[in-house]
């Protein structure tokens, strides 16, 4: 595990060093952006709509019994943008995109395509890792932004149409506007950027380390998804602690 973390830090450093020449890979970056962003958008919207809805459904009746239902917009707004949207999107992208990154790079490793790149003096980090890292670091925060907006809408719809809650969309969003500040959204976006780096590096590292044929590829994909989920949840706690200092 510790050796893996050391190797991943080294890969991250090599990736950062190779970023200045990334413009040469712009076609690959665009392809990856399309793959990550466009292909995940519908899934992200569906997920977010229901997450927003379920938060409102769970907390609305409780708040109503205590006479605090007018605070529902703020509660849903804050929990979505600071916590749920970044973590849910990171989990979605880790399972959907991180796994496919690992499988693709892993199969290239197994079938000697990466060796072929090396013999042509083409740096695999620059050619394979950098475009994927740039694409995921751009698209995950954008997806999280979408997710926040759609989840708020989901919360507002449930608040308005559920008889036990009965908060109009207008008062839901009024309260949300009063409570949620821009920095709360930025807070979520910072988290999503960090999660994007984690997902990208873990996926690419596992892909590059793959040995042993189709079975090895399967093992790497599983490892990449599990490791990135564990790291996301651990980092989420420490990032929250860190970002809380700026809320004061």
């Amino acid at each position, binding site marked *: 595990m510790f050796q893996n973390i050391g190797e991943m830090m080294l890969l991250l450093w090599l990736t950062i060093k190779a970023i200045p020449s990334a413009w040469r890979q712009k076609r690959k970056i665009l392809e990856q952006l399309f793959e990550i962003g466009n292909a995940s958008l519908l899934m992200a919207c569906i997920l977010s709509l229901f997450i927003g809805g379920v938060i409102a459904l769970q907390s609305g009746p409780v708040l109503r019994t205590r006479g605090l239902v007018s605070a529902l917009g703020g509660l849903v707004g804050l929990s979505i943008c600071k916590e749920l949207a970044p973590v849910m999107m990171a989990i979605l992208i880790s399972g959907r995109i991180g796994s496919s990154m690992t499988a693709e790079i892993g199969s290239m490793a197994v079938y000697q395509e990466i060796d*072929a790149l090396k013999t*042509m003096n083409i740096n695999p980090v620059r050619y394979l890792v950098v475009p994927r890292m740039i694409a995921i670091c751009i698209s995950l925060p954008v997806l999280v932004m979408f997710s926040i907006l759609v989840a708020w809408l989901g919360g507002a719809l449930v608040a308005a149409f559920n008889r036990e809650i009965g908060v109009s969309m207008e008062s839901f969003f009024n309260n949300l506007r009063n409570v949620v500040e821009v920095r709360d959204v930025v807070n979520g976006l910072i988290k999503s950027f960090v999660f994007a780096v984690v997902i990208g590096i873990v996926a690419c590292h596992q892909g590059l380390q793959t040995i042993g044929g189709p079975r090895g590829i399967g093992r790497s994909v599983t490892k990449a998804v599990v490791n990135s989920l564990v790291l996301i949840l651990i980092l989420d706690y420490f990032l929250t602690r860190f970002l809380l200092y700026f809320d004061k």
Partner: protein
Amino acid sequence: MSTKESTDRGVAVEVRGLRKSFNGQMVLKGIDLKIAAGEIFVIMGPSGAGKSVLLKHMIGLETPDQGEVLIEGIPVQGAHVMDRFRLAMIFQSGALLNSLTVGENVGLYLREHRSKPPREIDLIVREKLDLVGLKGVEDRYPNELSGGMKKRVAIARGLVIEPQLLLYDEPTSELDPISAVTIAEEILNLNRRIHATSVVVTHDRDLAFGVADRIAIIDEGKIVLVGSPDEVKANPNSVVQRFITADFRKEKPTL
């Protein structure tokens, strides 16, 4: 290409005391070889003898446990060898990038190193594909090609580099006899044209004795013999003779 030692000649390769083991099993047990610049050097031996592992060490894809490989006196594991010399390897499987078309695969080196303008790259790609007997396949993907076609595309990709050292891992396996002859001719042509040093790992005795300046026989991780094709044929060593004369004949039915 300006950073390369851009002479149109091959490079000398020296292997010193090379040892390598995988999971405790020693594959190379102290290999010493000297390959002259511009030479066509064939490595033959039974399967599992360590030929491909030796080849991978020559281009820096494997790190030796002991010993070293020197290209023009410079350790291949050291920094910048790949920047100084043009090296290429033709993998047994072809190792084409499956996400790229044939044309993109062949032109990959030139595009990534910005060696030529795109239009010129397209012309070179077509020329090299012609050379290996493939026309009009630029837009196809590797998974649409047969094993032999993949091998020829891989050779075209290697030729594009105009290498000073070209390593072939079983270049004629999976090829029909006519394509195998074309490949053998191309190994000879490249050697004549740019005096590239060629190291060929093969089981194909026709190819080996047809193109080699010298042949090394490797068995169980050790070099058994190095010599000219005639010297190898005449050598009485049983391992050598068994390998170069192995034959199979169907028994004639008795009347």
